[in-house]
């Protein structure tokens, strides 16, 4: 039962069907990218285009926008809600939603404030307690969803109110707790940036990792008699990414440099991306989001997958809350309220994670939150009121969802998932 391979001509195993057009070489890579975009498989193209437009507009209105110091502040602000958006990507992947991430983040900051400042716990222990609480809340949603069939939309909406109530309760009459300046946590959220050599080294890592894994795959595919992707394309991509990242880092290093907090966020996004694309768990998440019954019949423990998605989302929300408390040096009644919830969800959707489940990427949280925070930062620089900021952010979210829906329709008519 060996595969029927070409007798003498070394025909690659996956190139035997003569009816299929295969794009080869560099030109082919570009052409197949254009084909994908035309059929509605947009990937992160809309967000990149959107980002260019937003930055151009704000820079023309106020040149300070693209100054190195403003962008460093932008990265500090991105990290807190960005971590929450990472969790939202998890629940959106399985086709569910968590509307309570803002409240959970606010309650987590309240826990840290109370336990650490008021009760005198070690700060690490207080953070662990906050994260554990997040995981607990997520597990509760999963329990309601798996056992009682409660739609996540409703259970998390109930959670939004209940957790907000708990936050107000433990903050009590004082209403806010100031975290001590000079402590490691507050420094991490406000001051700590990477030394120049560290940031330049880290910026070289993505390119190197791509190169190593790309060459390894190249060798293995050739040994296995499968077609190999264009090597020139790989090298060009690696070069572009490395040069691009190094230039960005060099520019940001002109002022304070890259925040460690942003480094943590990017590290988490990279870890989540690996987990979602290269592990069995990630494959199961995508399958459950795409076709729940098919996943069940393939033997996947669907309930466990939902549990992991909800628990991870709330844990990320709690971590985002801790980072936000560090950023503001306080745990207040306002923490996690207002637009935190919708900014996190909007970031994931704008970045290209589908609301319909089964499609998404951890990097969509990264790209999306940069868009959201760019709008916020730009409007703040223009001295516009928050009323206008809400309206514009709302419009951007609506556009993102429209693009998602249209792309989905186009994919369906072009025979892509």
């Amino acid at each position: 039962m060996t595969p029927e391979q070409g007798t003498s001509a070394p025909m690659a195993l996956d190139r035997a069907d003569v009816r299929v057009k295969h794009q080869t070489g560099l030109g082919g890579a570009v052409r197949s990218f254009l084909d994908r975009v035309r059929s509605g498989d947009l990937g992160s193209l809309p967000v990149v285009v959107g980002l260019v437009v937003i930055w151009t507009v704000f820079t023309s209105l106020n040149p300070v926008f693209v100054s190195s110091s403003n962008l460093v502040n932008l990265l500090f602000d991105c990290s807190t809600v960005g971590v929450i958006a990472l969790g939202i990507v998890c629940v959106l992947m399985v086709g569910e939603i968590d509307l309570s991430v803002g409240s959970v983040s606010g309650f987590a900051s309240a826990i840290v404030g109370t336990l650490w400042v008021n009760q005198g716990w070690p700060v690490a222990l207080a953070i662990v307690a906050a994260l554990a609480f997040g995981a607990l809340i997520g597990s509760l949603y999963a329990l309601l969803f798996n056992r009682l069939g409660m739609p996540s939309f409703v259970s998390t909406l109930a959670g939004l109110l209940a957790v907000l109530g708990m936050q107000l309760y433990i903050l009590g009459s004082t209403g806010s707790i100031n975290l001590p300046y000079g402590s490691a946590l507050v420094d991490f959220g406000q001051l700590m940036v990477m030394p120049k050599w560290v940031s330049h080294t880290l910026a070289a890592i993505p390119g190197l990792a791509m190169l190593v894994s790309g060459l390894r795959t190249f060798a293995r595919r050739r040994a296995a008699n499968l077609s190999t992707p264009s090597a020139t394309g790989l090298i060009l991509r690696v070069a572009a990414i490395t040069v691009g990242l190094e230039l960005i880092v060099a520019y940001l290093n002109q002022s304070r440099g890259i925040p460690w907090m942003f480094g943590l966020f990017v590290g988490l996004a990279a870890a989540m991306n690996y987990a979602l694309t290269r592990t069995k768990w990630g494959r199961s998440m995508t399958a459950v989001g795409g076709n729940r019954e098919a996943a069940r019949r393939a033997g996947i423990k669907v309930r466990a997958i939902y549990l992991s998605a909800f628990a991870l989302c709330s844990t990320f929300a709690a971590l985002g809350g801790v980072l936000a408390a560090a950023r503001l040096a306080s745990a207040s009644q306002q923490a996690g309220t207002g637009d935190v919830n919708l900014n996190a969800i909007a970031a994931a959707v704008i970045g290209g994670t589908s609301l319909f489940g089964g499609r998404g990427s951890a990097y969509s949280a990264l790209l999306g939150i940069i868009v959201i925070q760019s709008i916020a930062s730009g409007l703040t620089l223009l001295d516009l009121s928050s009323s206008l900021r809400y309206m514009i952010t709302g419009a951007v979210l609506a556009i993102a969802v429209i693009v998602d829906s249209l792309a989905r329709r186009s994919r369906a008519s072009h025979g892509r998932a």
Partner: protein
Amino acid sequence: MSESPETSVSVGELVLSLRGISKHFGAVSALTDIDFDVHAGEVVALVGDNGAGKSTLVKILAGVHQPSSGTINFRGSEVTLPDPRAALTLGIATVFQDLALCENLDVVANIFLGNELSPLRLDEVAMEMRAWTLLNELSARIPSVREAVASLSGGQRQTVAIARSLLLEPKLILLDEPTAALGVAQTAEVLNLIDRVRARGLGVVMISHNMEDVRAVADRIVVLRLGRNNGVFDPDASNQDLVSAITGASNNAVSRRAERLRAHRDSADSGQAKEQRQ
């Protein structure tokens, strides 16, 4: 698929034995008191009209539904199938009528869904190779295993679903309408495949509405009607017997009228047409 027939079941041994299986959905009895046997190296065709309970029976064996009563014996011991994973672990693979594929995943991911190689660092190259091997065994016409299943035609999806069922070296394969969406050549390939699977000593249960396909490969034909056993036939049984058992028409006004008309036709006369109009 390894070359060596690693199955420990000797040919002819009873692989699967159902006794008194019933399944109720609320007030509806989908299955009543079904007895069903499959031996190793045997192809059993399961036929019946729409609503006869064929797919329900297959879903019970796949662990999708649980029987309301009755016992399932698999390879000599009584088993329960609380979920699809249990059935897969025992060695019962199923190709469902609706195929149960994830359209947003590519062909390789669908074939290996739930059984990925090296869970913490997916071995895409090995999985893609194995996928091509399985698909080539089925003489599949799949343009690319890296395309999402959404871009495949019905027949191509069928082939992917069958390839997936073979991945785990099952002891018993359940095929729910395996040839319904296939072209002439692919139908022949699937029937060839069923022959090959039988030759390796596996039990095969095949649901089909196509009597030609059923006769081509089946060793026994089990008829269900309205959720009950309605006879077991050899593949050389007459079409009339089979159709009667399927429709339940062997013993009623419709069948008697059909027989009378046939008798008239045999004595072919010019006055026959007038007689039939009466």
